[in-house]
């Protein structure tokens, strides 16, 4: 509804609680299927979304995940941008290390997401939040 007013990009899911994580997964999986990703790839994308969304719920409380279809050199892909205005990540390098976690988790979320996506970009300003942009290209 908001999209029609130009207030928010289409295909954006707010992330505030566990239910939103599931909703974001479904949107992402659906879009990935539309683009023509294989079922295992869809599951990978859904899992990546899950990790990103859960990070928002766990560390920032509130944020958004935006989905878009992207194209480069006649190749199609899906771009997912997870954004929050939480406390940010003080040490990005540590956060990208397997097994590093400030919460009580496996510490695989961010490095794991990087492994399963083709492109991964994380920006964080402490005190202002985190933006993670990931892209998965369809295999040819």
């Amino acid at each position: 509804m908001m999209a029609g007013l130009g207030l928010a990009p289409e295909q954006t899911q707010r992330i505030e609680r566990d239910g939103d994580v599931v909703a974001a997964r479904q949107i992402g999986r659906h879009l990935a299927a539309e683009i023509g990703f294989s079922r295992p790839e869809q599951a990978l994308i859904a899992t990546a979304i899950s990790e990103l969304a859960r990070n928002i719920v766990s560390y920032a409380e509130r944020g958004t995940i935006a989905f878009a279809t992207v194209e480069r050199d006649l190749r199609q892909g899906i771009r997912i941008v997870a954004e929050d205005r939480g406390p940010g990540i003080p040490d990005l390098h540590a956060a990208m290390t397997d097994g590093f976690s400030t919460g009580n988790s496996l510490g695989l979320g961010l490095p794991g997401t990087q492994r399963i996506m083709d492109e991964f970009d994380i920006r964080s300003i402490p005190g202002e939040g985190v933006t993670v942009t990931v892209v998965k290209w369809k295999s040819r």
Partner: protein
Amino acid sequence: MDDIIASSAGGHGRPGGHLADQLRWFDITETDRRQAEALAVTADELAEPIIEDFYAHLLSFEDARRHFRGEEQIARVKQGQLKYFRELVSASLDEDYVRNRRRIGQIHERAGVTPTLYVGAYAYYLHRLGHRVMAKMQDDPAHALPLLLSLIKIAHFDMSQALETYVEAREATIEQREREMSELPTPVLKLRDGLLLIPVVGTLDSYRARSLTVKLLEGIRDHRARAVVLDITGVAAVDSAVANHLIQTMTAARLMGASSVLTGLSAEVAQALVKIGVTGEALRTAGDLQHGIEMAERMLDG
């Protein structure tokens, strides 16, 4: 504009949202407040006939009529309506005002007044009010129009406050349902002596994961179980956090002397988990429930 988009992403107009930002979003300026205040002196005179018309309109709907018991109550509601209108034009638009509007919104939401009725009532008022103000200021229409436009802005702000309470009330309901769902007892089924089956359904958040662990451990103790099958076919989203919960639960079971088997993980999800870095070592899994039970039975017999 960027600010507004960003704050809308975080849900603008929430109780935490700053009133000043909200007013800025509605583009309500000092000029608008002064314009509205110009109406204040004639507010009652303007509003009374509109309120009469409005209730005649409202009560012409049988559904609405059923909400009211007797003339006395209608008279009281009309008085309330007049006060509401006076406040609108004398709008101080401060925190107190907002709190009051939200409270009124809550009352209406609880009473089953739908957003359609709410917005419709506003439209009815503004329309009639427009005509009356124009008639009253027919010598000076150039001033009447900006005055009305200001009032329309404030009325929309007013409406937004009420509607926010609607959304909040619904969200609270949904959250409570989710809570109830997550508190659904996780059944612990005894398949045979020493063998338990626990089907897990829904979203495995940290709260549920904790209660699952407790249930499992209690089940193992109460039934003196030595093998447990955890079936997660019904879990909506499996990611590293869920895997972590499961690993911890199964590790706890092992400390109680029971082996566990995880079933219901789809091939795609399994692949994704491995790519993310979840190692299978901590999780003993079986392709489907039947194999899981067979595996658990072998553990018992072996």
